[in-house]
């Protein structure tokens, strides 16, 4: 098949993909009235999902089983307060003679509206009703859900088009263009060359961190009223996933305050370098403590993967209880201190930090990198100051030889090598998304798979409407151990057995079918790369709506950071008012489709030299592409239908 034919086929398929959802709308339907007994309780609604056809009338008979709850329906301007025994207040708007709008509440028995807009609409609790209040939601599906049908047919089209284009060998080899930021912006170079650069970033964040800990321990125990919860788990998490990671890779590690006190302590310096002329077991520094090296057997990502899964099991508790958050951070702080006194370098960050694990694998796709300007200069330079330390900078705390850096994974961007290199041969570069293509071991591959599955599990648990899943996960409040263990068991088996099993199967099939001449492990590692861009975009799709929905809580806690009833900025009592909630399913759909495209596209590049011909590359990728399509459609169904 020629490329021309392939292009024509792709355009034809696009027309079909766009026409199919519209054709579905032609099915005739007659409007109905749905009378529904509607119950709110901590932390969900019954029914959790209401499915109607466009034009139908919905009549809810609302009541609350326990405390006062809210009911705010995205896109429909229905805002009610639900109390026990059916006492319901419905908000309405009216305009006075001057044209000024007023709101008022009316005591009602029924909530009635006509479902005249199609799509998915979430109803949310507006009254702080307990720990999991921010996740108390239900869903109204108004058929035909054309946006969702579009997303599904486009996902099919993307996979079809990509594979077709691969089959005809249409892709050009990936570009290796990069922009040297330090030589281009001299102010930036002066900034990162300054010895105190990292110190100030760390100090500022450490002060903020200290205040967060105070607030978490002594502030409001209500999660959405505590700055530690709101800032860390909603604001920081989203900023990390949606901004820092895709653009700056591990740039968070540059400014993470948790290991800072330990590092300052063992270096016995805040900004300057203590340089030893004679190296002590390779490094030109003597640190406070035992100066041991991390055991080789543990020098991989499995501890991080394990710790991450442990934290995730308690995820919903961790991110809704200020005290749990504080204990976690203080524990990490203590761990960094102890480990630093025993081992040299950032052993906690490198081998234990659960966040560090996925920052490592995901930073492979980041649009920036720290690399030598010219590797030849590094090869000829005998001292390797970046690795062992120089007069201008500390030895790499991450144990890296900058001259050999090919991937972002284990570079914490601390900028010491930029300062220690006497040849001025280290810089920070901008590069295309998804440039580091090779995963090196099963520990990294599993990290990628775990992250994707956790994005799925969190989406189900936190953003989904299912009361029983929230109750199972929220064990410290519901106090039922068996459902919790079942929940954790399913999460673990999904992340460690089911999904890896599916991928291994797809990899085995692809390898057999294409007959490519690389080992099974190598094939699997290369194919796993697909789930790095997809994972990043799935996490953005999970995180971004949190900020859009809860931004008023962010403003409120800024005004009252310690939960003491202050109102510094006048925003402490802002009502719950999501930002463009109607657009959230659309944004999530676009993000997931972008993730699908970029995942497969970069995955094909990762397969690259292993599959020498277009046909081999197509055959090797096909089973994994179908698995990816399945994953994306599971997410689409979760977010859009």
């Amino acid at each position, binding site marked *: 098949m020629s490329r021309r034919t392939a292009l024509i086929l792709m355009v034809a398929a696009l027309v079909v993909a766009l026409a199919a959802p519209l054709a579905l709308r032609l099915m005739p339907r007659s409007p109905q009235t749905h009378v529904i007994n509607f119950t709110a309780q901590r932390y969900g609604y019954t029914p959790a999902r209401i499915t109607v056809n466009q034009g139908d009338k919905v009549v809810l008979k609302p009541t609350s089983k326990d405390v006062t709850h809210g009911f705010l329906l995205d896109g429909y301007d229905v805002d009610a307060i639900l*109390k026990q025994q*059916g006492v319901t207040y419905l908000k309405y708007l009216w305009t006075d003679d001057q044209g000024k709008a007023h709101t008022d509440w*009316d005591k009602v028995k029924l909530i009635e509206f006509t479902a005249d807009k199609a799509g998915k609409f979430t109803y949310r609790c507006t009254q702080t009703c307990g720990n999991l209040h921010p996740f108390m939601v239900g869903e109204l599906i108004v058929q035909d859900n054309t946006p969702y049908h579009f997303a599904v047919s486009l996902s099919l089209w993307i996979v079809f088009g990509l594979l077709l284009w691969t089959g005809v060998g249409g892709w050009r080899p990936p570009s290796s263009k990069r922009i040297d930021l330090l030589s281009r912006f001299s102010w930036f170079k002066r900034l990162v060359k300054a010895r105190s650069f990292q110190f100030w970033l760390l100090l500022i964040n450490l002060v903020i961190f200290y205040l967060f800990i105070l607030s978490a321990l002594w502030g409001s125990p209500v999660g959405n009223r505590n700055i530690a919860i709101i800032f860390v788990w909603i604001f920081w998490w989203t900023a990390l996933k949606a901004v820092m990671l895709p653009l700056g890779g591990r740039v968070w590690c540059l400014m993470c305050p948790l290991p800072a006190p330990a590092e300052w302590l063992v270096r016995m310096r805040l900004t300057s370098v203590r340089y030893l002329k004679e190296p002590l077991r390779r490094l030109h520094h003597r640190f406070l403590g035992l100066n041991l090296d991390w055991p080789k057997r543990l020098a991989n990502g499995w501890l991080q993967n394990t710790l991450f899964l442990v934290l995730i099991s308690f995820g919903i508790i961790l991110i809704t209880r200020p005290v749990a958050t504080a204990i976690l951070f203080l524990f990490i702080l203590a761990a960094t201190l102890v480990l630093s006194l025993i081992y040299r370098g950032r052993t906690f960050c490198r081998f234990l930090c659960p966040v560090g694990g996925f920052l490592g694998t995901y930073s492979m796709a980041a649009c920036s990198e720290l690399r030598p300007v010219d590797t030849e200069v590094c090869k000829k330079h005998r001292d390797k100051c970046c690795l062992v330390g120089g007069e201008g900078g500390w030895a790499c705390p991450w144990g890296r030889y900058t001259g050999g850096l090919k991937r972002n994974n284990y570079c914490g961007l601390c900028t010491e090598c930029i300062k220690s290199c006497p040849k001025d041969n280290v810089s920070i570069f901008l590069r295309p998304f998804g440039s580091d293509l090779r995963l090196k071991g099963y520990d990294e591959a599993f990290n990628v798979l775990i992250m994707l599955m956790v994005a799925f599990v969190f989406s189900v648990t936190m953003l989904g409407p299912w009361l029983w899943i929230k109750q199972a996960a929220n064990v410290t409040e519901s106090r039922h151990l068996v459902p919790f263990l079942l929940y954790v068991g399913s999460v673990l088996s999904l992340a460690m057995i089911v999904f890896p099993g599916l991928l291994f199967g797809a990899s085995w099939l692809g390898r057999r079918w294409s007959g490519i001449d690389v080992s099974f492990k190598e094939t699997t590692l290369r194919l796993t790369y697909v789930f790095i861009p997809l994972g990043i975009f799935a996490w953005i799709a999970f995180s971004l709506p949190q900020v859009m929905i809860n931004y008023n809580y962010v403003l409120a806690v800024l005004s009252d950071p310690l939960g003491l009833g202050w109102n510094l900025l006048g925003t402490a009592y802002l009502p719950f008012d999501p930002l463009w909630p109607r657009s959230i399913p659309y944004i999530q759909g676009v993000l997931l489709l972008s993730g699908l495209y970029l995942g497969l596209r970069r995955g094909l590049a990762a397969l690259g030299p292993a599959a020498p011909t277009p046909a081999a590359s197509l055959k090797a990728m096909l089973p994994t592409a179908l698995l990816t399509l399945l994953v994306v459609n599971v997410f689409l169904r979760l977010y859009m239908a």
Partner: protein
Amino acid sequence: MPRKTLFAFILALLLAPPLAGGASAGQIKGTVKPQGLRSPEGVLVYLSNGPEVMLDLSGAKFVMDQRQLTFIPYVLPVPVGAKVSFPNNDKVAHNVFSLSQAKKFNLGSYKPGQSIEVTFDQPGVVELRCDVHQEMKAYILVLKNPYYALTDAQGNFAIPDSKLLAAHGIKGVPPLPEGKYLMKTWHEKLRGDRAKVEAPATGAADVTFRLKRGPSGVLYKR
């Protein structure tokens, strides 16, 4: 024409107006168009200087029910002298009280299944509250004469309000005599309005009220 047929014809002509229902002698009907309400239902319209007639309240039954932490109805208009019962049909105890001038009382806490009666012998607005549940509220409007009406879901009313009178079992309300009357409105969230109306001997006068949001006033000046 046979005499019998003629007789039937005349009888039919005589009976037609009363049997035709609504448009009988002495009626005022109309519409209330309120500003800033979700629904125009439940606005009181009354004749402040209507004829004070002796009413037969022997079969009357006025009930302010308490169910699901709510008083039902929210607005209960009654004539002076009405005996209103306050049954507790809820699952929890209630304590109904009023601090209003027209009738001050406090029924104390009483259990589900119990009922207490209160007689309202002074005209005026009585705001009911429950000492246990601060969100519970209702109004009893005590009126000097039976010529009052509550608007329906479309904002329509008719005085006398035959449906309301029948529901409350008030008997012996004569048709509204021909004459000039002062009509007033009352709603918790609306500023009261008034209109001079001439009730015709037959048929009905038609009045439209456009009400604004504002503090509600008293029913009668003292």
